[in-house]
């Protein structure tokens, strides 16, 4: 299986009374809380962590896009990815991703992703999220009633821009371009693998199946709630006659590993609480504008116990953050010794049939030293126990196909004077 290292890049210096004094971590968060000099340190620590993860053997490193918030400091993940393309050698560069409807014109995404694929020698995974309502509808002013149509149209435009060799005109509902001729084009043919981060809507499952894309369920609420969603996903794949190749699916999981469970509980309590309290402190008024969810999804949400349970969990966090005991008991964060973590993750991967496992090993206000420790222990003592899973039976058709290693450029060593 594939083990990927995902960075959300949280702002690590929110005050202790943040959730009491401030209504939201997103959209209208008080910008006076942002200290650029501290952010300098954070960005550089975070990039060190991503580079270290690639160096120590994670299959891929993941970045994503969010706006106007202290939950994740990457309005432009492509900037981080560009640096990673130079500072890593073999790891997949997984941009999870660019929210297509936010780019005008969306060919900008085709261009920047093609640049990343060229610079990295074909190591890019192209992620196309719709984007959260906070990011898209409130921060970037997108019309909630048109967001999904605009997203799908932008997707079609980007795909055509990557695969059509001749200059073409695009006459869409939201985008009209007389001359589309994206230059550069990606290394990977016909295009980089596409992964779709989703939250559990049936339409997204169907679309991923139809397009042959990876469906990545990015939940903060662990494998116990994730199981129900992934069961739904695989039932839908069965219904559509698709195989149960586990590499069709991705899942996000927080992990804290130490020599013993007792130590791990002590070490990861603070960063886990910081994340689930402060980073997820999203005012409910930004959470669900009318039109953002399709009517089919709303109907399913009402009808299905599955999704109802998941949205209840979200509400619980929006109105009253979980205790550390809940965080651990409910599996939001998997905590333990290397063997305990490996056992649990094997169960997660097998039960959910997920081949692309995205690990969150830095979260909340976790310091760089602890993030390195967590990452190293995971790479050396957990990963070897998991890596062979699925590999004998299934081909990962959704993994980047880079240029041969010996043909890929090596950045010149820089002498800092």
């Amino acid at each position, binding site marked *: 299986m594939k083990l990927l290292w995902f960075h959300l890049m949280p702002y690590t210096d929110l005050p202790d009374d943040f959730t009491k004094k401030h209504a939201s971590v997103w959209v209208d968060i008080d910008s006076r809380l942002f200290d650029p000099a501290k952010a300098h340190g954070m960005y550089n620590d975070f990039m060190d962590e991503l580079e270290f993860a690639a160096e120590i053997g994670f299959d891929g490193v993941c970045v994503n896009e969010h706006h106007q918030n202290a939950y994740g400091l990457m309005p432009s993940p492509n900037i981080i990815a560009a640096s990673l393309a130079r500072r890593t050698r073999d790891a997949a560069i997984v941009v999870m991703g660019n929210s297509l409807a936010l780019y005008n014109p969306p060919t900008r995404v085709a261009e920047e992703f093609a640049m990343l694929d060229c610079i990295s020698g074909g190591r890019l995974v192209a992620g196309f999220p719709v984007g959260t309502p906070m990011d898209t509808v409130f921060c970037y002013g*997108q*019309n909630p*009633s*048109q967001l999904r149509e605009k997203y799908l149209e932008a997707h079609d435009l980007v795909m055509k821009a990557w695969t059509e060799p001749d200059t073409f005109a695009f006459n869409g509902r*939201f985008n009209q371009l007389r001359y589309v001729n994206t230059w550069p084009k990606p290394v990977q043919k016909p295009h980089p693998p596409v992964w779709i981060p989703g939250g559990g809507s049936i339409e997204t499952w169907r679309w991923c199946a139809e397009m042959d894309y990876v469906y990545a369920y990015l939940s903060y609420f662990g494998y116990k709630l994730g199981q129900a969603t992934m069961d739904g996903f695989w039932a839908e794949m069965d219904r559509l006659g698709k195989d149960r190749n586990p590499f069709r699916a991705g899942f996000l999981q927080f992990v804290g590993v130490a020599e013993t469970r007792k130590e791990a509980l002590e070490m990861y309590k603070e960063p886990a609480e910081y994340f689930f309290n402060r980073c997820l402190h999203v005012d409910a008024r930004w959470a669900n504008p*009318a*039109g953002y969810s399709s009517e089919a999804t*709303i109907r399913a949400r009402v009808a299905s116990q599955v999704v109802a349970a998941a949205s209840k969990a979200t509400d619980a966090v929006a109105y009253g953050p979980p205790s550390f005991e809940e965080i651990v008991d409910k599996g939001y964060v998997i905590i333990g010794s290397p063997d305990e973590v490996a056992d649990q993750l094997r169960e997660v991967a097998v039960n959910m049939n997920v081949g692309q496992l995205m690990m969150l090993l830095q979260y909340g206000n976790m310091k760089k030293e602890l993030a390195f420790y967590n990452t190293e222990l995971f790479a050396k003592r957990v990963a070897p126990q998991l890596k062979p899973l699925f590999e004998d039976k299934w081909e990962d058709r959704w993994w980047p196909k880079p240029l041969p290693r010996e043909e890929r450029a090596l950045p010149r060593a820089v002498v800092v004077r």
Partner: protein
Amino acid sequence: MSHPGVKETFVRVGGEQVRVWEKGSGAPLGVLAGLGGLNAWTPFLDELAQSRTVIVPSLPGFPGGGLLHKKLDTFADWIICMLDLLEAAGLEGKDLVGHSIGGMLAAEVAAFSRASVKSLVLIAPLGLYDEKDPPADPFNRRANELPPLLSTKPAEFAKERLTPPAGLSGDEQTEWTIVQIRATEAASRLLWPLGDLGLARRLHRVTCPVKLVWGAGDRVVPPSYAQKFASGLAGPTQIQIVPGAGHALDFDAPRTAVLG
């Protein structure tokens, strides 16, 4: 939802079936409802029907308006749709009462096509945006914040306008809720993000008589906007401020004599 004396028909607009209610006698009077639309005939409409034949076509995406809003991408699409709708409902060239978003659309229609409207009563219309005194954002409210934003009788408003009527099955309640959400989506589709589509630049084209009616307690569009509208309009205007009413003036003060 049937109501004594109300005739319900459907007209075809943009390939969709759109509900039209009619009640009363006398000269026809079109009514375009406000945010949320109408799930049931109201006492306010009854008041108007005392002296007029009240005709209430549903707006695209609002209750009774199906999914028509999903076909409207541009502002021009909305205007053409409104002209089609008024024509189909037999309201071309007639007197119109427009409330909130319905008031904005009525004013836009009058600006684009003078012959389409005889006179206007605009109740707390949206459409102008003064950054020194901006209208509220009606789309980012927690559920418990919406009733006091819209109405000066929030508890009654929540019960009558925002809660499914008693006696519905589980599925019917779900559909009722979806229709409510759809109405908000349809309003968002036209108004997002600020509700300023440039009406200020077109108001001078409105030459018919216009009466502006505002609830003194309107928390969505401040009553000061009555004067802003009046100063942009080209024809004769009157202003009526209704004490004790909020943005949902039809709910808060249903006996208000808005005509004449």
